[in-house]
């Protein structure tokens, strides 16, 4: 089973928690300071295509869970690398050097929507949002309903009053 072999190869070099989720899906958890090293290692194993990169906000645990999904064209397996960082001071090394521009653009998006600082990423300028001064909008503690009420509705307007009533 190729999924097991990949986990064993990674475990020989790194201190990780690894599991096979199902056929063609491998999940690996690692400490944030070893992340880039692991990414370089798995890219050499054949995971050339960074399919996606994502952040999950867990306010109760106080962490941002970063996930990196990489696909191997050779073995036809998707690996998910997970790591956790402090959500109040979200900083992590960029994987731009590993996967190139495809990583750069995903990181730029996550920087905008979650406020994660990717150290080493050459361009983290705003992507979708224009003149945004609030906290990053995809954080769990950003209440978009409140934001919309404040910015787009008028309490005095008879037709829009309904949006301010408690449900």
């Amino acid at each position: 089973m190729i999924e097991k072999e990949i986990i064993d190869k990674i475990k020989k070099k790194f201190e990780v928690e690894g599991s096979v989720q199902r056929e063609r899906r491998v999940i690996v958890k690692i400490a944030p300071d070893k992340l880039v090293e692991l990414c370089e290692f798995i890219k050499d194993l054949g995971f050339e295509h960074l399919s996606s990169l994502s952040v999950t906000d867990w306010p109760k645990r106080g962490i941002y869970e970063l996930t990196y999904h990489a696909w191997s064209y050779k073995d036809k397996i998707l690996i998910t690398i997970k790591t956790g960082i402090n959500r109040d001071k979200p900083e992590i090394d960029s994987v731009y050097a590993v996967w190139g521009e495809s990583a750069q653009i995903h990181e730029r998006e996550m920087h905008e929507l979650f406020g994660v600082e990717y150290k080493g990423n050459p361009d983290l300028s705003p992507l979708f949002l224009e003149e945004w001064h609030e906290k990053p909008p995809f954080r769990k503690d950003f209440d978009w309903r409140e934001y919309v009420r404040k910015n787009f509705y008028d309490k005095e307007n008879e037709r829009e009053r309904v949006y301010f009533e408690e449900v």
Partner: protein
Amino acid sequence: MELEAIGKNEYELFFGPAHPGSGNFSVKLKIDGERIVSARADPGYLHRGFEKLMEYRLPIQNAVLSDRICILEALAWNLIHAEAVEELMGIEVPERAKYIRVIMAELSRIQSHLIWYGVLSIGTGFDTGFKLAFGYRDFILDLFELITGGRVYPAGYICPGGVRRDLPESAKERIPKVLDKIEKMIDFVRAENPANIARLKGVGVLKLDDAIRLGATGPVIRASGLKTDVRKDEPYEVYDRFDFEIPVRKEGDAYARYQICIEEMEQSAKIIRQALKDLPDGDFIDERFSKLKLNMKIPEGEVYVRNEVARGEAGIYMVSDGGTKPYRVKIRGPSFLHLIPVLEFLLKDAQIADVPAIYWSLNGCPADMDR
């Protein structure tokens, strides 16, 4: 288009968002004479924040929302959303539903590739191609209306658990008739057109190493010489039961991408015919979903689902904390990579007259880029 002088021969030129056909998207080009010095994509005109909106809604509502991720292939995004929810809940979809899903997804692919052919034609000055493609696309939209009730937006026809309504009896006869018409049209557009070759050949060459580094997928990377398709690499639904080819080209230019577009339509038609022939009887939706329940819990867990949509690789990463709504949804749209890093790379050092050919040969959709 807006012109602003920077230096003596250098200009900044805006391609979009008001350019007819660029979609809700723009590229800022820095131009020296006729040559493009640098290009910078400017997305965000269609950002609706689906990932956040889905956190506040039940899967049954999100199925309707997922139509809008990409306007031009709503059914394909319906399918991938439904698959993510099903995998989290551990639901096996009835056989009949799987076949109907494949038929709809492939019809959606043909329809989307017709748009691709149409806008590429009009972008390079071949007006007839545009009219032809959009005219024939309407036959498929008629089928969508018959089967789902909506011509462009199926309103969550492919929902978690199966499909919302059974395939009507008349659809079984009408689908092959429409495919016959479309195959005739493909034969027509296949004919080598000297003007087309002159405008597309050797333009916007993407080498394989660059394609992988820039995150290209789907038809774009296949035109650069990598034989990869999620339907074959990681078969979902019942794709492993059908016999079809993956068209591949080595050149990596706009003409190669155009040829892939034409050939993929033929392959999709082949899949639909096989699926219609083998269509089994039985339920079309899982019984747990056939009656709407609002308090259905999604078990704790996470999934990453990949699908091959017309534009390339689509992905949904869904996390659940055990509630009725998904905790986090991350949507990976193929155009996000194609229209930002790939387009910026290809436009650098290109000629200004080649911009439309490069832009439309990538088959981008601003809607699934911005989400």
